[in-house]
């Protein structure tokens, strides 16, 4: 029996030598338990040592390996060849980010945005270690748990039409993480975060297409976080309007 094979078309770009990105096609063995990352590793090991891409865990948790696969943002370690076979698979770097090289995207912008929303507990009052852990009931944990599941894979940014149009938009994952801390009973930093989240580049840029939540491999549902943040900011605004001297 001849070995089954699959064609993988990869967008290559080496800034030192290439004027523009261009596709290059490789033929790899087809195995039904292989993911696209296995195919890339096969190419790197056996066909072309110059192919560059990021990966580490091979178990959909480190968030390194986000790519466009047949036009959709996916984790390449969680996109099975069996879902494409016998058709060819087209692999490109994450959309909406500049290309550093081959499948490696420049993601500095996200790192800055994440930092800007202060994604850490800002306590009402510092708590000493001797005081022990806070109490937090399973229900209180569940209120924000989903938003803690973000692996920073940036598939949602690649899917977001608004981020594509207005790069200043803080974007789904960073807003979801801001919301995660806002909802945490240990946190008192919402007002500080709101400056960014409720700014023009924050939630108001989102038009609720919901592409981000569909792309998310971890069911974080950033669209819901953005929606809830918007409602909360609207309430803040009304409160301030109706009661301009009151404490917000």
């Amino acid at each position: 029996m001849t070995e089954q094979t699959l064609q993988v078309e990869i967008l290559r770009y080496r800034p030192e030598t290439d004027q523009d990105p261009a596709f290059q096609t490789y033929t790899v063995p087809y195995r039904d338990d292989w993911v696209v990352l296995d195919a890339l590793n096969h190419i790197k090991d056996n066909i072309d040592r110059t192919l560059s891409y990021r990966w580490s865990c091979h178990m959909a948790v480190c968030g390194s390996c986000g790519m466009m696969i047949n036009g959709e943002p996916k984790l390449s370690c969680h996109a099975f060849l069996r879902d494409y076979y016998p058709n060819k698979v087209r692999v490109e770097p994450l959309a909406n980010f500049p290309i550093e090289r081959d499948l490696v995207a420049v993601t500095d912008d996200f790192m800055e945005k994440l930092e800007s929303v202060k994604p850490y507990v800002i306590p009402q009052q510092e708590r000493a270690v001797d005081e022990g852990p806070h109490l937090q009931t399973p229900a209180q944990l569940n209120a924000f748990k989903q938003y803690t599941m973000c692996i920073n894979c940036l598939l949602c940014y690649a899917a977001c039409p608004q981020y594509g149009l207005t790069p200043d938009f803080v974007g789904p994952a960073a807003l979801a993480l801001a919301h995660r801390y806002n909802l945490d009973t240990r946190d008192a930093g919402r007002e500080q975060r709101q400056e960014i989240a409720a700014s023009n580049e924050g939630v108001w840029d989102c038009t609720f297409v919901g592409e981000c939540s569909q792309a998310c491999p971890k069911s974080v549902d950033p669209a819901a976080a953005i929606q809830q943040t918007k409602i909360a900011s609207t309430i803040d605004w009304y409160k301030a309007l109706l009661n301009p001297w009151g404490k917000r």
Partner: protein
Amino acid sequence: MDVIETDVVIVGAGGAGLRAAIAVAEADPSLNVALTSKVYPMRSHTVAAEGGAAAVIKDNDSLENHFNDTVTGGDWLCDQDAVELFINEAPKELTRMEHWGCPWSREPSGHVAVRPFGGMKVERTWYAADKTGFHMLHTLFQTSLKYPSIKRFDEYYATDLLVEDGRCQGIAAIELRSGQMRVFAAKAVIIATGGAGRIFPFTTNGGVNTGDGAVMAYRAGVPLKDMEFVQYHPTGLPGTGILITEGARGEGGVLINNEGYRYLQDYGLGPPDPWPRKKAMELGPRDRLSQAFWHEERAGKTVATPHGQAVHLDLRHLGEKKINERLPMVRELALSYMGVDPVFKPIPVRPVVHYMMGGIHTDIDAATPLAGLFAAGECACVSINGANRLGSNSLTEILVFGGRAGRGAVEHVRSGGKDVDRTAIEEQAGEAQKRVAALFQKADGTETVVGLRKEMNHIMETGAGIYRSKESLEEACKTIGELRRRYADVRLEDKSNVFNTDLVQVLELGSMLDAAHVLAHSALNREESRGSHQRLDKTERDDETYLKHTLAHYTGEGDPRLEYLDVKITKSPPGERVYGGAAS
């Protein structure tokens, strides 16, 4: 060459590196920290840890229990002063994580919940569902963003320690984006580069776990300790090596052979209760469970899969609700990567290389014998893990000793006083750069990264795996020695500068070969069986000769020079490791 001047440089931004950075920032916000990592911090392999982190917090538990479980689990090779300090600081560190927002799973009352792990007398593992390492890493990373004194250098590959005048004064690292070498000049250096599982073919470790930092220290003259001790985790998915957490057995999962029989009862781990009895059966220690598999396989009692022999991990009796609630990731991983839904079918599993007990020799303050150099996390060996790490101790270890490394570095900077010798270290970095440049200039390399790596992987598994012997280890030493020589002819095929992953893999292979070399020699020289180091030709533990740590020193092209150091015993004299019914 660009020089980045800082007070403390940290190599590695996994759990240990991030915890160290925060410790420096908290101890002295006026000190600058350069946090370098070859991947973005949240990609570090701490992210993959599932089960949990151990610390005594419940009334039914005691520090003494944690001490005994750790020392017994380590087959008495742990330094007991270090263990004592570790168990004392553990609850504080996990509490701090709680204050920083780690989403620990809770009891209905709102208290932090704990679960049992293998080899534990009383359940004491804090967990965040079955994504504990992921939540710890992101909590640490996000918390680190709060401190302005921490400056990150993401995607920098460190190649060399810069040592002058008997002091470690910085590192040389390649910025992957540009391919340029940079010098980090610092008064203190902390290495936190994680494990080296990738020297074996079948491992739970990510692509980044190549032992770089340990080997950097080794080449700079710092000894590597106890490198012969490699932990196999009993339950990895065949093929990918993806880990099925011990938490699955803590919740009541059982291991059965091809006859549907709970075979662990034949290996001194019974009785086979229908419920998870602590320290017995499926909750026995990892080394024993992995060794039992080896015997079952030889007895023809395992199950064939397309990726080799396996046994079955059966969770069906837990029911869908409990599996979804407590082990969602296990279900997801088994479904995606094995096509098995554990609600309806048992999961095929086999032992898989998981954790390096050995590493850079440090004292209990995370200081190495080289002034100005500290190390913490899986790359270091304090030693609290001895000959076999107790599951869920290492997520705690990266916090306790990461923190100590950070504070130690601050102390050192404040008291060390002496300035960095810029001229000398720049010259050294120039040498490091020349070595990398030589790879680019060489036109006729005859060896490939892939070829050498495969040979290394193969000989490590056959020569230095779950069971070893004099012959198998001699073979491993010989082959790795040859591979190291052949590595001089390795071919770099990609000659570009920007994000050159071929270059990274060439350098990583160099680290792995040196780590494998030390591992094989240390194992050959330890003529006894202890914990994870099992010799078919020396089946007994020999406290007379080997109640000692191995220290391996670099000699350049030759074999490592081995020395031995007494284990620190404070209160628990070496005894028998008792598991099964007799232990509870």
